[in-house]
């Protein structure tokens, strides 16, 4: 196979830049019924917390113009069961596995990171410091450079796995957070998580989501994601996994140009469950149309002068 789609995320080499966004692909089992998931550049699984997390009451999702709100609330069966029951399934596929890590305290993140470091199938960690849907934790780290850096440092101290820190877009200056986690040793950055939003049911005079607010994802947020990736790309040297509204091969190229080394697809999986293999199949043609030979030459190649 041609190497034109190959990309690098620090120590990881991916056969193509396409992976699912955390929380939009479960642990891979469902999509594995639809297509061979080893086609993907990587697999990113749901947030894992030390203990099982029940998540938020329903309704948990609401549609918005060209987007959706979710307030899943990090529902997951907890570290132990993720390792015992969920991750082994992915060992059968030739695909790097990135596990999204969440928690309420530094200790939580450290515990999960440490335990996952001993699991063979895991290729990298993604620290979710940006979930807008849980009251404590997560987002508290994501909006301030100090705590974000401290968390990154603590996790790096207990793991040899590459650590990607997933940033929140709900901040005044995302570059500050990015440079802080880079300085603290992050191997890369994932961005963006969802924008905090709300939808209202006028008949019941209530929010549509039981959680009141939720995270906005989908095509609606693409311009914000591109802007932030471009800003952070100019300020850091570590690779970026870009995401936020990607739903086509041309979107992927936009994210590469803005500075992403790989691109995650979230919400679009719900609209078209075959979207990721379709994008991978279409990428060579799009590269050709714009006169590019490789994915890597496009990374950050946006001209702005």
């Amino acid at each position: 196979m041609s190497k034109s789609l190959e990309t690098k995320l620090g120590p990881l080499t991916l056969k193509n830049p396409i992976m699912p966004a955390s929380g939009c692909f479960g642990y891979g089992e469902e999509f594995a019924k639809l297509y061979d998931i080893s086609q993907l550049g990587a697999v990113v699984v749901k947030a894992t917390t030390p203990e099982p997390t029940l998540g938020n009451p329903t309704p948990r999702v609401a549609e918005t113009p060209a987007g959706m709100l979710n307030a899943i609330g990090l529902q997951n069966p907890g570290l132990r069961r993720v390792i015992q029951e969920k991750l082994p399934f992915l060992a059968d596929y030739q695909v790097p596995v990135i596990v999204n890590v969440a928690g309420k305290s530094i200790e939580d993140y450290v515990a999960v990171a440490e335990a996952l470091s001993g699991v063979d199938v895991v290729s990298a960690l993604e620290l979710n410091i940006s979930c807008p849907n849980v009251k404590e934790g997560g987002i508290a780290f994501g909006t301030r450079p100090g705590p974000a850096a401290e968390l990154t440092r603590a996790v790096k101290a207990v793991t040899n796995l590459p650590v990607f820190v997933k940033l929140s877009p709900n901040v005044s200056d995302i570059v500050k957070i990015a440079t802080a986690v880079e300085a603290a040793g992050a191997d890369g950055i994932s961005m963006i998580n969802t924008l905090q939003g709300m939808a209202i049911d006028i008949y019941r005079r209530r929010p549509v989501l039981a959680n009141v607010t939720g995270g906005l994802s989908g095509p609606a947020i693409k311009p914000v994601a591109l802007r932030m990736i471009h800003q952070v790309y100019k300020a850091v040297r570590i690779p970026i996994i870009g995401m936020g509204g990607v739903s086509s091969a041309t979107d992927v190229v936009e994210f590469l140009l803005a500075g992403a080394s790989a691109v995650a697809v979230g919400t679009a999986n719900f609209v078209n469950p075959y979207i990721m293999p379709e994008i991978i199949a279409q990428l060579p043609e799009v590269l050709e149309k714009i006169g590019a030979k490789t994915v890597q030459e496009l990374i950050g190649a946006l001209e702005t002068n």
Partner: protein
Amino acid sequence: MRLQQTTVLANEPLTPDIFRLTVSLPEELPEPVQPGQFCNLRISGNSHDPLLRRPISISDWDRRLNNLKFVIKKVGRGTKALSRLYPGQKLDLFGPLGRGFPTDHLREGQHALLVGGGVGIPPLLLLAKKLAAKKVKVTAFLGFRSKNDAFLYEEFARYGKIKLTSDDGSLGRCGNVCSLLADCLNQGLAGDSIYACGPLPMLKSLEELAARFPWPAYVSLEQRMACGIGACAACTCRRKDPEPGEDWYRLVCTDGPVFRLGEVELSE
């Protein structure tokens, strides 16, 4: 499940709000449709708005002609867009999804009670058809707002007895369908299984009646969905009594939409 570009064969109004859409599948479905399963219909073409697919129960499946029917109520943008499809147009369909009504435990000559309210009625039609084909006796309790809002009941009559109610008394008995069922149970009606689909209050009334029927009962639930295949955890419902160490939730899209009555909490 399979993703297919179906072709609309027919689209007919059944009431002012409710229409029936018939689509023809270009490819065979991988497995037989179970009554109670649903499809995820894409209404947006290549527009990003509206974005998400709409889950709609299969109300009929013709294996020979390889087509599916949906009976749909116009409530919002998506269902209104579906109501405007005309024959020949394409409709992107993903399905069948979820688990349907279990019927393997019923034998010829046994008796199934079907309880449907409003737009919960459509999936029961395919169930009635399947049960009738197995020579299971069917009694369908169907509740409507009014005579003008009533639909499909003649078709149920093909497969068994029908008992109708309407909120305003313009069709069948005045009142709700569970109180009619309760009365019939009081008067000695017996069955071997109960199947229900309808609005939450109806399902809750049924649950209150549960003490009066020892037979297995199955209910079909709705929940806001994103993926429809168990990957996003949007559509959870709570299990009533999970064993320690067991999951405390179920997913409406893959564990349901049909659950055994009593397995999960009936709440929004």
